[in-house]
């Protein structure tokens, strides 16, 4: 099922085979192999700083944040071109990334015209609710 509600796209499937079309989980790097757990000594866990690094955000620029916790993907599938890059022009309906929660993918759109100035999260990493993902400088 493919739902578009406002600025959100939802792909829903209970069919595991459907992953081949819409899912990236097969190669998702953020999911550690279960068999590798519990055998190696602990490595200290660090809570990543969810705030954007560097200086303050210029007024009028748009910060696109994660709508929920999930795995952040910059391309529609493994090996495909990225949705966007720093310096790229985007329109309001431009796709920026996918956020995956248990094989359910939400497309995040720019919501504004402008230029991508920052991409804060890495492809395949876990992002948290409200975490800044993209910084967009609007067209003058």
């Amino acid at each position, binding site marked *: 099922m493919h739902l578009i509600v406002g600025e959100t796209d939802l792909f829903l499937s209970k069919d595991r085979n459907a992953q081949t079309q819409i899912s990236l989980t097969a190669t998702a790097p953020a*999911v*550690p192999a279960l068999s590798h*757990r519990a055998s190696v000594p*602990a490595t200290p*866990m660090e*809570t990543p700083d969810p705030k954007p690094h560097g200086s303050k955000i210029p007024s009028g620029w748009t910060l696109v944040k994660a709508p*929920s916790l*999930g795995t952040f993907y910059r391309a529609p599938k493994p090996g495909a071109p990225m949705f966007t890059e720093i310096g790229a022009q985007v329109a309001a309906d431009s796709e920026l990334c996918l956020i995956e929660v248990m094989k359910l993918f939400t497309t995040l759109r720019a919501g504004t015209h402008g230029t991508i100035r920052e991409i804060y999260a890495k492809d395949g990493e876990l992002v*948290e*609710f409200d975490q800044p993902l993209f910084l967009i400088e609007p067209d003058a």
Partner: protein
Amino acid sequence: MPDTAPSNGRLFVANRGEIALRTIRAAQALGMEVVLGVSAADRDGLGARTANRCVVLGPAQARDSYLNAGLIVHAAVSTGCTALHPGYGFLSERAELAELCAQEGITFVGPTPESIRQVGDKISARAMARAANVPMTSGTDAVEDVAHALKLAEEIGYPVITKASAGGGGRGMVVARNAEELAGAFDQAVMTAREAFGDGTLFIERYVEVARHIEVQVIGDGKGGVVHFGERDCSIQRRYQKMIEEAPAAILSPAVRKRLHEAAVRLLASINYRNAGTVEFLYDTTTEEFFFMEVNARIQVEHPVSEAITGADLVQAQLKLATGAVKGFAQKDVHTAGHAIEARIIAEDPDRDFIPCPGRITRWSPPSGEGIRVDTAVETGTLIPPYYDSMIAKLIVHGNTRVEAIDRLAAALDDFVVEGIATNIPLLKLIVAHEDFRSNTINTRWLETVLLPAFRVQQGR
């Protein structure tokens, strides 16, 4: 953070408030690392600061954070967790969460999904109790409509109580003393149950007029071995919500207590129950009979009173069992000593019909000392958000005798200072000072029928 969990495992805590903090500390004491999943409202709380890592699941609304099983399991997998503790409330008794954990290779610290379903449906739980020869009030299976209800109630004999098959907490429960009352209330009860649980199925039981709520704490090993940790008396309730709990239930004779424990163990052994659970009974003071009510397939709010009299750490026991650190427990190792009482500190204003009182706590000074324990996740400066249950702390006291425990509780309540929000502490003080509480002659309707009218008079209304 894809990295490798330590040898003792990494626990995901899928809850908030005092039980999240309690579970974090229990797990860390066992050498586990803990990841806490929070809503945006709880990102700066004591739990978030105590866990080894905290992830923000979603916005404050529980629907989009603490009640979203997919989000929680995704967070647990992505942070390399090996086990998940659901606490109480929220998703703790949803088989779906236990199932998702199993699919993803995460150990669910609780019963199997099958057990959760079996005891969660009250009609199937009654069938289970019947098969295990556990006493029940005379009652019915699913009731089809008003006419069916009237026919069955005639057979059982009035007064009767309607109950929702899909859940508890008082919703869908109506006491009827005659056919007219039952006919008048039935459809509304169906609607209430449907709204609360998505399922309007009701059944009917004989209503016990003067009852105590007595429950037995157990832990099962999943292979038919079940050990009990004594019983609790939780008869001080308002609208089926407990306010004060005690262990042991001082009203029971040793013979009845033994039969009660045996019934609870027999019931959960019959389904090879795994991990912590509670079997709730109604106790008829006049006839000294007890009747099965329901099974709570999780750790309960009031578990600390059982810990106080047994010396056990039930949350650590849950974790040890789930992670395979122990295979089970032995009844001969469980001993009880003294008397314990828990009072729930709730951010509600008893002067204004118990309206919830969220807000900023400007001063938090809980009591401390010998035999006093306070379980909480709040501190001075904490903002109590309006989105969740309003219980903010549990005050647990332990003494050699019930009298000593009551005196200790009274003194501890006098020392408990909370400023910035209203709480039920003034009401708790009145309960503890009341002759009926001291003489242990209360019942499940006492708070509403005896104490609250007196409280309103005292408050000048």
